[in-house]
C-alpha cells in the first residue's frame, strides 16, 4: 500500500459526493418541470455509487457508475387551466419530493465533510512521520 493512494481514495469520495450534490440540485431545480425534451415531465435522477479498486491490494475507492431515473409515478395535480393538463384535467408533475431532496442534500454534505476530515487526518499523520528525527 502506498500512503499517497489514501489521498486518492478521499478525493474519490469527495468527487462522488459533490456529483451527488449536483444531481440533487438539478432535481430541486426541475421539481416543477412539466415539459422535457422527451415530452413527459422531469423524472427524479439518482446517482449510483460503486466501489472500485485503485490498486492491486484491493484498496477500494468510490465512483459514480451511472445515473438512474426514479421509476415511481408522477405527481398528479388537478388543474384544467394548465397548458400541460391532460384530457381529464390532471397535470403530471415530476416525481421529485423537495423535502426528500433536502434530506439527501444534507446527507451528501455530511459525507463530503467526513471525507475531508479523513483527508486531514492522513495529512497530519504523514506530517508527523516527516517530523521524526527533527528533535
Amino acid at each position, binding site marked *: 500500500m502506498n500512503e499517497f493512494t489514501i489521498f486518492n481514495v478521499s478525493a474519490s*469520495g469527495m468527487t*462522488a459526493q459533490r456529483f*451527488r450534490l449536483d444531481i440533487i440540485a438539478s432535481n430541486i431545480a426541475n421539481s416543477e418541470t412539466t415539459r422535457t425534451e422527451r415530452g413527459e415531465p422531469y423524472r427524479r435522477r439518482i446517482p449510483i455509487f460503486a466501489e472500485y479498486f485503485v490498486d492491486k491490494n484491493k484498496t*477500494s475507492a468510490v465512483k459514480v457508475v451511472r445515473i438512474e431515473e426514479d421509476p415511481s409515478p408522477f405527481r398528479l395535480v388537478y388543474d384544467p387551466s394548465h397548458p400541460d393538463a391532460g384530457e381529464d384535467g390532471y397535470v403530471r408533475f415530476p416525481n421529485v419530493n423537495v423535502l426528500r431532496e433536502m434530506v439527501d442534500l444534507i446527507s451528501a454534505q*455530511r459525507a463530503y465533510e*467526513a471525507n475531508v476530515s479523513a483527508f486531514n487526518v492522513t495529512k497530519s*499523520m504523514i506530517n*508527523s512521520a516527516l517530523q521524526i528525527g527533527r528533535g
Partner: protein
Amino acid sequence: MFNTNFQILKVGMDVAMLRQSVHTQNIANAETMGYRRKYVVFEEMLKEASKLQLATTHEKHLPSVRSLPRPKIEVDKQAFYRNDLNGVDIDYEVTQMVANGLKYEVLARLMSKNIEYYNTVLRGV
C-alpha cells in the same frame, strides 16, 4: 546497533497507516450500495504470537526469534446500518480514525525520542 524498539515502533506505525487507509476506504464508500465495512486485525494476532515463546532452560540456548505477525484486512459481513446493505457506521468510522491518527503521532514521537537518545550518546553526552 539499534535495539528492537525501532522495529516494533515501525510495525506499529505501519499498522496505524494501514488502518487509516481502511478507515478512509470505509468513509469514501459510506453510501455505496452493498459495501461491507473493512477492518484491520493485528493486536489479537500479536497476542497469539507472543504466547508461543520457546523456553530457554540453558544459558547457551538462543532465544526464539520473535517474528511479528502481518496485519490482515478483514471484511465485516455482519453489520448493516442501512436498508441498502451498506455496513458503514460513519460516526464510528470517523471517531476511530481520529483516535488511530493520534496513536500514530504518539508512535512517531516515541520514534523521535529513541533517536534522540542515540544522538545524546553520539554527541558524547
